[in-house]
């Protein structure tokens, strides 16, 4: 296996290690802790009164437009990163290109702003 892939394998070990250490501690805790479930303990907590309706109640997700904007800007960041590492080589040409790119994006942000989608209603 190449050195490149091996370093990514390390990441897998780290992820597994997190699960392993947490499971070990939870297992240890399972040996030590009491377990006496009662009806009252197991109902959902709603500041002491009996829960009303479903736990998965309907709630307004206010930020779906934010989420769309987030995707746009995140993809933009993916494009800017490689450019940022090579800026020294591209010099003036790269600067103008990215200036246009960022200007278009800023224009989009201003448009969204004017349309009022950046308000948390």
């Amino acid at each position, binding site marked *: 296996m190449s050195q490149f892939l091996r370093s990514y394998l*390390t990441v897998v070990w*780290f992820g597994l290690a*997190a699960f392993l250490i947490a499971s070990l501690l939870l297992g240890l805790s399972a040996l030590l802790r009491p377990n006496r479930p009662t009806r009252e303990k197991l109902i*959902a*907590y709603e500041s002491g009164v009996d829960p009303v309706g479903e736990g998965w109640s309907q709630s307004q997700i206010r930020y779906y437009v*934010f989420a769309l904007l987030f995707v746009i800007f995140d993809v933009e960041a993916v494009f800017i990163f490689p450019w940022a590492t090579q800026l020294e080589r591209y010099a003036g040409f790269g600067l103008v290109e990215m200036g246009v790119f960022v200007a278009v994006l800023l224009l989009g942000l201003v448009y969204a702003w004017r349309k009022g989608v950046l308000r948390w209603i």
Partner: protein
Amino acid sequence: MSMVSVLAVDLPYWAQSLLRVLGGLVAVLLPAGTIVYVFLFKMMSFMQSRLGPMEAGPYGSMQLFAEVGKWLQKEDIYPERADKFIFKLAPLIVLASTFLLVAVVPFGPDAWFTNFEAGIFYALAVSSVSVLGILIAGWASANKYSLLGGLRAAGQLIAYELPMVLAVIGVVIQAGSMNLQDIVLAQNAGSIFGWDGLGNPYVLTQFVGFIIFMIAVQAELTQAPFDMPIAESELVSGYMTEYSGFRFLIFFIGEFATAGVFAMIASILFLGGWGVPFAWFGWTDMDSVDNWMNIVGPLILFTKMMLVVFVVMWVRFSYPRFREDQLQRFAWKVLIPISLVNIMVTAILKVAF
């Protein structure tokens, strides 16, 4: 760590991996413990004119072990309507995100776990995994407080991910690399107007970026004034409401371990990371750095991390909570335009000089 090759010991792959994972364990739990004791127990107490824990050990220094012992014995309650499997999985995902994040932090010239070419890119990508854990914790609890907390957390982390990413781009432009070791090298071997007594820590040349990054870190860590997802006066404890016993403690450890790792990344990006200005010892590049930096480097990084966390905690203990709409407005209408302008100004200056 490639320390192994420095020590001229030829270990098989599994032993190297085991050493790395053990190192990662120390790199996650040691800062988390120190942060909780020094800042959460002591500094918060002193700022509120009280002593904090004093009984367990000298100055309450053994309090952490007492706490872990206490949490280990707590009953593990989950609501009967909860989605049990993912309810149990959620804290593990949050902790795993921290471990994946620490894998990329360099501690010395040869003391690193992984040395990706796109290191900072990887860190930014992995740091958002914890949002998943938080969102499914909020959803699986089948509790209205948890659901609202989880949704708030998702909205907040979406909004502040962007300023963070855009602030990092300024550093990448200056260093000309996404590799964290290269960024450390560029700061410590650099010079400001030909003077290399301090190197070129980007906190000086990327000051705007540093401020934006720290604000975004504060929000990503959901520390006050950005703690709406767990706002105790509105949502009890947000997405953690239904968690009890050791599962709650895993969330807690994850929160402060992530604070430590984010502070390490902030000090690598802006404060010179594990290095000291190379001019002090006449080093010029990575190969000329003396071997003892592999021992001293982690200590220097730890010190810088404590400084950064001190600032984060200072803000946390000093400011009242934002309102949800103020939070979104601040991210989208202030931080993102500023950071876009910051990128262009940095790029123009980089090309001009």
